[in-house]
C-alpha cells in the first residue's frame, strides 16, 4: 500500500514539475531589449512538493464520503428547507449584522439565482444545452436602458417589455436552430451569445459601443423616488414615510425587488412543471422520439422553453441595468453564461433549491474574497471541477414526481 502510494505520488510530483517548469519556472519579462526570461525555479519545487504531498494524502486517506443520500419521501423536508430559505431571504436586510455590503452581495447572488432558475427551464427541464444564455440577459438590460433613455419610460413599464423582447429574441433564434441535436445547439447558442456581444460592442450609435450606457434611470416604488431630492411632481421614499434620507433605502429596495422577481420565477417554474407544457419539457429531455410518437410537437415545446427562459433572463437583465445604472458589453461575456450554466448543473439539473445553493457557493462565496482578485477566479474554476468530480449529478439531484396517484385534486 505505502510503496505503491509513494511511487504514485513521486510520479505525480514529477509530472507537476514538468508542467510547472515552463509556466512557473520562467517568467517572461519586458525589458528594454525586448522579452527576456527570468528564472524562479523555487516555484517549480513548491508545485512539485505540493502535488507530491497532496497525491500521497489522497492515496492514503479513505475516499471522501458523499453527501448522505436524502431519505425517500423527503418532500416535506425539502419544502421546509425552501420555506426556511425564503424566510431568511425576507428578513435578511433587517438582521443586526446585515450592512449595506451584505445586502448588496445578497442582491448579486439573487440575480444569479434568478438567472439560474431561468436557465433551468431550458437546460434542466427541457434538456437543451444553451451556452449563450447571457445574450438574453444582455437583451433585457439594453432593452431597459434604451427604452428608458429614448422614450423616458419607467422601470415598471420597461420590465415586461424587456422580458417580451428577450423572449422574442429567444423565439427568433430558437426557431431555426432548435432542430439541431444537443451539441450543435450548444455551439450555435454560444455563437449567438458572441454575436450579440460583438454587436453591442460595435453598434456605437445605439449601444454606445464599449463605453456602454450610463445614467440609467433607477426604479421607483409606486412613484416614490429613492433619490435624495425628488424629481418634479414626485415624492421621495424617505419623505413619504417620514424617514431620514439614506442611500441604504435604495439598496434594500433593490434587494426586495430582485427577491420578488426571483420568487416569481420560482413559483412560475414550480407551477409550470405540473402543467402539460412543463411535463412535455421533461419528457422531451428524456426521449424526443417517444414524444413525437405521442403527438407532442418537439419544436413548439422546445421553443416555449427557450422563449420562457429568455424572458426571465430579460427580466433579470432589466433589473441588472437599473441596479447598476450603467451597462457595457463587458458584463455580458461568455464567462457569465458559463457561470449560470455551472449553477444549474452544480445545483442538480432541475432542482430549485440546488440552484440556490450553487449560486451562493459559486457567486456569493467568492464575493468575500474580492481582495484576492486573481486567485479568486482560479479558485472559482477549481471549485467547479472539484464539485463536479465530487457530485457528478449535482448537489441535489433527487427528482420528485409532479403528480402522485394518491394526490388530492
Amino acid at each position, binding site marked *: 500500500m505505502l510503496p505503491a502510494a509513494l511511487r504514485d505520488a513521486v510520479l505525480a510530483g514529477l*509530472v507537476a514539475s*514538468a*508542467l510547472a*517548469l*515552463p*509556466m*512557473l519556472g*520562467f*517568467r*517572461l519579462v*519586458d525589458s528594454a531589449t*525586448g*522579452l*527576456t*526570461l527570468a528564472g524562479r525555479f523555487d516555484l517549480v519545487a513548491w508545485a512539485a512538493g505540493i502535488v507530491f504531498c497532496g497525491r500521497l494524502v489522497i492515496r492514503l486517506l479513505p475516499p471522501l464520503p458523499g453527501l448522505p443520500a436524502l431519505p425517500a419521501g423527503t418532500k416535506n423536508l425539502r419544502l421546509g428547507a425552501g420555506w426556511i430559505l425564503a424566510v431568511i431571504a425576507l428578513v435578511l436586510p433587517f438582521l443586526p449584522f446585515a450592512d449595506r455590503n451584505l445586502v448588496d452581495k445578497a442582491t448579486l447572488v439573487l440575480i444569479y439565482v434568478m438567472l439560474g432558475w431561468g436557465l433551468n427551464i431550458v*437546460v434542466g427541464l427541457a434538456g437543451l*444545452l444553451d451556452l449563450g444564455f447571457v445574450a438574453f440577459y444582455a437583451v433585457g438590460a439594453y432593452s431597459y436602458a434604451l427604452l428608458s433613455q429614448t422614450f423616458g419610460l419607467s422601470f415598471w413599464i420597461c420590465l415586461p417589455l424587456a422580458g417580451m423582447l428577450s423572449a422574442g429574441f429567444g423565439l427568433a433564434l430558437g426557431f*431555426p*436552430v432548435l*432542430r*439541431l*441535436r*444537443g*451539441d*450543435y445547439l*450548444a*455551439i*450555435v447558442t*454560444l*455563437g*449567438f451569445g*458572441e*454575436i450579440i456581444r*460583438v*454587436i453591442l*460592442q*460595435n453598434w456605437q450609435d445605439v449601444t454606445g459601443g464599449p463605453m456602454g450606457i450610463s445614467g440609467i434611470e433607477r426604479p421607483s416604488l409606486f412613484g416614490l423616488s429613492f433619490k435624495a431630492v425628488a424629481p418634479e411632481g414626485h415624492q421621495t421614499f424617505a419623505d413619504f414615510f417620514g424617514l431620514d434620507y439614506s442611500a441604504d433605502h435604495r439598496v434594500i429596495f433593490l434587494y426586495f425587488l430582485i427577491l420578488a422577481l426571483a420568487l416569481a420565477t420560482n413559483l412560475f417554474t414550480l407551477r409550470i412543471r405540473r402543467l402539460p407544457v412543463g411535463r412535455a419539457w421533461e419528457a422531451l429531455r428524456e426521449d424526443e*422520439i417517444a414524444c413525437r410518437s405521442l403527438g407532442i410537437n418537439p419544436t413548439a415545446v422546445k421553443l416555449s422553453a427557450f422563449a420562457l427562459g429568455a424572458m426571465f433572463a430579460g427580466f433579470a437583465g432589466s433589473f441588472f441595468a437599473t441596479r447598476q445604472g450603467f451597462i457595457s458589453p463587458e458584463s455580458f461575456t*461568455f*464567462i457569465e453564461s*458559463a457561470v449560470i*450554466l*455551472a449553477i444549474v*448543473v*452544480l445545483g442538480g*439539473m432541475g432542482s430549485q433549491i440546488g440552484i440556490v445553493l450553487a449560486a451562493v457557493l459559486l457567486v456569493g462565496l467568492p464575493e468575500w474574497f474580492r481582495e484576492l482578485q*486573481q*486567485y479568486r*477566479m*482560479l479558485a*472559482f*474554476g*477549481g*471549485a*467547479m*471541477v472539484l464539485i*463536479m*468530480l465530487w457530485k*457528478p*449529478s449535482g448537489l441535489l439531484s433527487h427528482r420528485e414526481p409532479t403528480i402522485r396517484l394518491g394526490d388530492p385534486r
Partner: protein
Amino acid sequence: MEYFLQQLINGLTLGAIYGLIAIGYTMVYGIIGMINFAHGEIYMLGAFISLIAFLAATTIGGTSVPIALLITLFATMILTSLWGWTVERVAYRPLRGAPRLAPLISAIGVSIVLQNFSQLAQGARVKPLPPVFHGGITLMEGNDFTVSLNWLQMVIMALTLVLMAGFTWVITRTSLGRAQRACEQDMKMASLLGVDVDRIVSATFVMGAMLASVAGLMVTLYYGVIDFYIGFLAGIKAFTAAVLGGIGSLPGAMLGGLLIGLIEAFWSGYFSIEYKDVATFGVLVMVLLFRPTGLLGRPDVEKI
C-alpha cells in the same frame, strides 16, 4: 485581384492554425463525445510554452534560428501535450459515465483555471516577440498593391501539411489509430475486445494537445503577440470549424478550419473587421441549417 490573392494567402494561413486546433476538438468529441472546452487554453499554453522555449533556446543555444525553432517545436509539443494529458487524467477521466453535462462543466472549470493560472504566472500584459523570419517572395506586383508570401506563411502551411500527413498516417496505419477508430465506433465493445480505453483516450488528448501546441507556436511567430486570453476566441473558432466540417471527421476539421480562416480574412478584407466573428457564426448557422451534421459529417440516420 491582387488584394484577393493576398487575402487568400492570409486566410489559408489563419485557417491552417484553426484547423490544427479543430482536430483536437473533433478527435475528443469523436471518441468520448464531449466538448473539450479547455482545448483552447491548451493552445494558449502551447503559445506561452513555445515563446518561453524559444527564448530559452536562443539564450542558451546561441544564434541559429532554425535550430532554436526546431528545439522549440519539440519542447513545446512535449510539454504542452503533458498539460493535455494531465487535464484529461485529473478532470475528465473520473467523470466517464457521469451525466452528459458533468464533463462539460468540469472542462469549463479547467478552462477558467488555466486562463487565470497563466495570467498569474506570466502577467496580464501582452507578450510581444519581434519577428523571427524576415522576407518572403513576391508573387505578383500590381499597380499599387503587392502580393507577397512570406517565409513564415510558407513554413506554417508546410508544417501543417506535414503534421496532417503524419497524423493521417497514425490514424489509418498504426495500431494506436486502429484502436482509436474502434473506440470511436463503440467504446464498450472495444474495451471488451481488449483495447485499453483509458490509454487510447489519453493518447487522443495528447495528440490533440500536440497539434494545438504547434498552432500556438505558429501564432506566436506569426502575430508576434500573445496573451493569456487568446485561447478563448481561438477555441470557439476552432470548435466552430470542427462543427462546420462535421464533428468527428478529421478532414472535416481541417476543411472547417480553412473555411473559417478564409471567411475571416475575406470579411475583414472586404467588409468590416469588427463584424468578422458575426460572419463566422452566421456561416456556421447557415451550414448547420442546411446540413445539420456539417460539411463532411456522416449524415446521421435516426435510429428508432
